[in-house]
């Protein structure tokens, strides 16, 4: 699997992502500068977490206009696989590659804590190593992760199996109104979604920060293993 991680000014979780990708592929992914105007031969583009452009104006808004995002869009339109985590998810919604938007957390505070995610669709290149309904632990760290979309979009997402992950209790219960379960107040407790072709995935939490017992566990690893399985050639 040939993967690349995109670096915007203010990106700060690129190394975490590279560690996770290296852990499953054995080789370091390449780094792409936001100003680049072409992509090398790739199977996966990752937009990592951070504060691109300081999160000023709206998270991800300025990064969405970077030269490289034109290329990423074209790549996705050709059927390429794109993973956006945290700020990367925000950039994907600002670019329009994924629907909806991410608002300030409902509690209006930055949240850095563990959460649990329930796998809603295990038949995707991002989730195949899990079974539907599996629950796993993962850290989250964001101030703007409160997913919203209009009801039509929501119906489509829900109806087409495009909700990849939902915030859940340790036992798999989902209660969007309970902030101990759905910490940022996302609609339908949505933590991650997919594009219509299932090849673009955006999520707020950081599975890449839980891929080693020394980080406290390997609960995030199946995501990367799924990608390797789907994209190795």
């Amino acid at each position: 699997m040939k993967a690349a991680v995109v670096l915007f000014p203010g990106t700060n979780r690129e190394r975490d992502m590279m560690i996770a990708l290296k852990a499953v592929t054995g080789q370091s992914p390449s780094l792409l500068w936001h100003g680049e105007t072409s992509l090398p031969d790739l199977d996966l583009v990752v937009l990592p977490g951070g504060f691109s452009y300081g999160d000023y104006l709206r998270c991800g808004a300025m990064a969405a206009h970077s030269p490289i995002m034109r290329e990423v869009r074209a790549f996705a339109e050709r059927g390429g696989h794109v993973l956006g985590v945290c700020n990367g998810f925000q950039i994907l919604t600002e670019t329009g590659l994924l629907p909806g938007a991410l608002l300030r957390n409902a509690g209006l505070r930055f949240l850095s804590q563990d959460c649990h995610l329930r796998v809603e669709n295990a038949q995707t290149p991002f989730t195949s190593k899990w079974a539907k309904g599996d629950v796993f632990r993962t850290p989250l760290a964001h101030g703007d992760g409160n997913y919203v979309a209009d009801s039509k979009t929501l119906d489509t997402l829900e109806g087409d199996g495009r909700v990849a992950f939902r915030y859940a209790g340790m036992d798999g219960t989902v209660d969007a109104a309970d902030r101990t379960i759905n910490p940022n107040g996302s609609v339908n407790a949505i933590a991650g979604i997919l594009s219509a072709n299932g090849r673009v995935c955006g999520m707020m939490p950081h599975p890449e920060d839980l891929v080693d017992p020394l980080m406290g566990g390997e609960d995030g690893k199946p995501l990367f293993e799924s990608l390797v399985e789907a994209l190795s050639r």
Partner: protein
Amino acid sequence: MKVRVTVSLKEGVLDPQGKAIGHALHVLGFDEVGEVRVGKVIELDLADEDAAKAEARARAMAEQLLANQVIEDFAVEVVK
């Protein structure tokens, strides 16, 4: 030319910040406060001399960058 772009959440989009401010105002004893909505105001100094042109350009900026029309509305106003 100074232009002011006001960006606010679309009606129907929940505004937790506005709600929190409303709550805090009640705690401070401002009982008359009903709904509170919070938006952004972006003041731009533009080199244009022409008000209509400046407004059109600011509108383009809002559409492309300053507002996210999935969740936000905007208004443009030439100040001077």
